[in-house]
């Protein structure tokens, strides 16, 4: 997009002034109103068989009006900022809120500073292994990412595809640029604004017959850090190694889990256990267990919205500053994240700033960690971790994981794009894909070594179905349970 178009899209003053004008449309003495405005520009270029087959761009604006009358809240949303439409939307939200029984909603914040930190009974003294993100907060908006053009994306993909073609292989993948701005303003005086960018590049490399595959991806707020050539080299190398796969039977194996795999497993702790709603519903693995051991003592996991390595973003969808929250501290259940509604149910608790988008119409709105960091990362590449495996597997990534038992955080999913057998510290064969089914908590009780960390997303988030980003190390685990295999 052109610079003029970006200027059109971005601007704290312009957006907040617009919301200020909209708040003047709220009829006097009718109730409180909160406006959440999200503008988004998404450009996705996809390639298959070494050619771009899909190239799309869209820009949208969403305005969510939440009207509070006597403790009841009704919502209306639109994607049109004409004053007449917004006025009708506000009036309709107020009208519906007046019709509703008292819901005891805590009301709207008056400042982004009202979020903070909580201590759960039993988790006193449990905190981070040091300080979460001791350095300055990472930048959520990077101009170079915002200014990517269709030609830039095509050039990036051409760079990725060139060595693939040279190797006689087939490349598939995606280059996605996202530019967002989020603003929240309400009749209590709250004014919040933040902008974000992201660049995501992934490459799946296959042989022409589709029987060998290798994969790599890169994620950053700043597209200048993406390296399509390095990505291609990694995926090509993996594809070429992934030949003559042998079939292995179910059982427990030592394993080296690359960070993408770790993300797909930790994801289920995050969505089923690390939010206050799950805790209050009695469904979290932390329910009744704060301060107790839930994983190995070498596991530390926390939510860190400021970490430069976990796709930082300073705000949530209630306009609150997003705070760091310890989740698992030295293996013990330490805390969960809150939004204003869930915090209001616990005396003395406040939002931790992890309210999620209200735009999702098909599911419950619950607070969820969105910037997960696991401690312990080292400078050891995967090859180093492999050297300490007697007999086990290297897992590149998982596909379509699910959670048959949320309380025990049991994950199941098949491996893909590079599964390898290790014997006595060396890769000795490629392996047909296998189904991993195991409690993530039990898996994290067997971590023996940490490798290099990576900024990444789980399969669901990377593909737009979830919202959590991660900075996770590769792990060498002592016991990884596989319950079956597939034919390729």
């Amino acid at each position, binding site marked *: 997009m052109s610079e003029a178009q970006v200027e059109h899209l971005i601007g704290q003053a312009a957006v907040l002034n617009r919301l200020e004008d909209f708040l003047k449309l709220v009829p006097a003495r009718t109730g409180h109103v909160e406006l959440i405005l999200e503008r988004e520009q998404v450009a996705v270029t996809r390639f298959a068989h070494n*050619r771009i087959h899909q190239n799309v761009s869209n820009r949208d604006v969403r305005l969510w009006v939440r009207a509070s009358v006597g403790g009841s809240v009704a919502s209306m949303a639109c994607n049109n900022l004409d004053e007449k439409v917004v006025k009708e939307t506000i009036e309709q939200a107020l009208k519906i809120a007046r019709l509703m029984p008292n819901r*005891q909603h805590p009301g709207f914040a008056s400042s982004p500073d009202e979020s903070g930190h909580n201590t759960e009974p039993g988790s006193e003294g449990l905190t981070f292994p040091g300080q979460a993100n001791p350095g300055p907060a990472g930048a959520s908006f990077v101009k170079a990412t915002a200014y990517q053009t269709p030609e830039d994306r095509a050039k990036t993909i051409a760079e990725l595809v060139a060595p693939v073609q040279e190797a006689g292989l087939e490349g598939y993948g995606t280059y*996605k640029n996202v530019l967002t701005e989020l603003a929240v303003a309400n009749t209590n005086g709250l004014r919040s604004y933040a902008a974000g960018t992201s660049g995501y590049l992934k490459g799946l490399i296959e042989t022409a017959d589709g029987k060998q595959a290798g994969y790599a991806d890169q994620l950053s707020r700043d597209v200048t850090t993406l390296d399509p050539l390095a990505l291609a080299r990694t995926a090509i190398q993996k594809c070429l190694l992934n030949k003559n796969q042998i079939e292995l039977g179910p059982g427990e194996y030592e394993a080296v889990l690359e960070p993408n795999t770790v993300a797909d497993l930790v994801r289920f702790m995050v969505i089923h256990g690390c939010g206050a709603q799950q805790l209050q519903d009695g469904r979290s693995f932390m329910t009744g267990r704060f301060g107790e051991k839930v994983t190995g003592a070498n596991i530390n996991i926390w939510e860190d919205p400021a970490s430069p390595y976990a796709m930082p973003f300073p705000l949530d969808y209630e306009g609150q500053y997003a705070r760091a929250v310890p989740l698992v501290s030295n293996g013990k259940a330490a805390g969960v994240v809150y939004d204003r509604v869930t915090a209001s149910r616990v005396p003395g608790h406040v939002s931790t700033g992890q309210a999620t988008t209200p735009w999702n119409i098909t599911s419950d709105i619950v607070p969820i960690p969105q910037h997960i960091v696991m401690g312990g990362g080292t400078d050891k590449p995967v090859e180093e971790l492999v050297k300490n495996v007697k007999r086990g597997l290297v897992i590149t990534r998982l596909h379509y994981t699910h*959670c048959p038992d949320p309380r025990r955080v049991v994950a199941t999913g*098949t491996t893909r794009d590079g599964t390898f057998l290790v014997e006595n510290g060396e890769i000795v064969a490629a392996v047909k894909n296998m189904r991993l089914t195991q409690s993530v908590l039990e898996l994290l009780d067997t971590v023996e070594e940490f490798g290099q960390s990576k900024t990444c997303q789980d399969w669901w988030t990377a593909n737009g179905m979830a919202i959590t980003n991660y900075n996770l190390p590769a792990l060498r685990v002592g016991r990884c349970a596989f319950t*079956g295999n597939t034919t*390729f």
Partner: protein
Amino acid sequence: MAEQEPIERKLNEELLLSALEAARQAGADYAEVRGLAEIQNDVRVKNGEINKMMTREDNGWGLNVRIGAGWGFASSAELTGQSVKEIAAQAVQLAKASGRVQPKNQAASYGQPSRATGEYRSPVQIDPFKVPPREQLEMLFSAEANLRRFGRVKVSESHLQAFRSFKFFANTEGAHQRQFITETGGGLSAIAVEGPYSYQRTYGRGGNYGQAGYEYILDLQLEDEALRVGEEAHELVAADPVPAGPTMVVIGSNLAALMVHESCGHPTELDRVLGSENAFAGGSFLEPQMRGSFRYGSPAVNLTADATIPGALGTFGWDDEGTPAKRTPLVENGIFTGYLSSRDTAAAIGLESGGAARASSWSRVPIVRMTNVSLEPGEGSLDSLIGEVENGLYLETPSSWSLDDKRMNFHFSAEICREIKNGKLGKLYKGASFMERTPIFWGNALKVAGPEEWKVWGFLSCAKGEPLQSAHVAHGASPVLVRELTVQREGK
């Protein structure tokens, strides 16, 4: 001239048509424009409180253009003379950029032209957007309270939703189509907790949905169903774990519908077969050379993609490339015979489009999607299937599902499981799951129950494509008798 419906006024058709000309002038060989105006209601009651009361309007349009072998799609919520020029220029810029990364002699085929014109309207008896919120809430509160009548139920939820859309489509080949679709539905969820265990029982997992008015929601009888769902949740959490091992099973209609979706619908999507989804949703084990000869299932297994089923979520007049709704056999007497396809994917293997190109929003490009992919009914009642089982299990409603990237190996968990002993349903079990390979599972399908047991299930969130597209699809299914399935016990 007939008076316009309120939703029609959200789209200026003249401006949309002008985008085709703007694209042509900017250099497009082909262009199609699609405007979409949508309004959605979502009402949820949870644990005795209103959890969500939300209405959302979402209007916009998109322009898909081809220049040579390069495609570009741009879209915007704004529809003005200025935005038409900008979006046309963007779409052309994107198509030209696509052209930079193409193999030499890349074919530019887009299959058979779409020139159909007309209008499609889904049936509505009671306008769901005119039902007073208080009436909707009263029904949901009553249903939700019924879930909580059972002591171990700790989290209870009832919900209903309504969707209305007006879609305008035109292309440079002469197609000109207008479609008005109203969808409604709702559901229930009860989570029972005891000690370290928690189990969820639902009505149809996410509920059930169809193309209809509020009468569909009333027909769901959520208040009565809540008594069953709440009681089963209450019993489930205290039930014995399922005995593991190979056994004969009967798969209930709702679980069978999701199994059809995951293990037949997705692998028959031709874009997956041709590689377009390799890096995200995955490929398929059903390769083109297998069509007409590969045994996908037993002779009892017949699967179709049918976008003409009255009242189903995957029904329409034309798909989002302008191709008329069709019925396409996918598996006939157990043999794999057909694909879900779009214009370009069908052309790639010498076929005509199956009319299954769909876009989930104005901001998304059409891709191959399921319509109504169904397991055709056989004969007999559910009771007659159960009556054929001496020792076995009855499994109903999915609670989790996971498949490999070619849809060969799958793992499903069932919300509820009952013993079958001497042809009768017996005690309740918890924690049943199973893993199998697709052709082996369907190859073991001995019988499919008859039309009297056939039920269409509407799913709201079939995910595919980048950026993500969450599609509304439906699946008709009757219960299935399976010769042998190894049931596993989730380690509770």
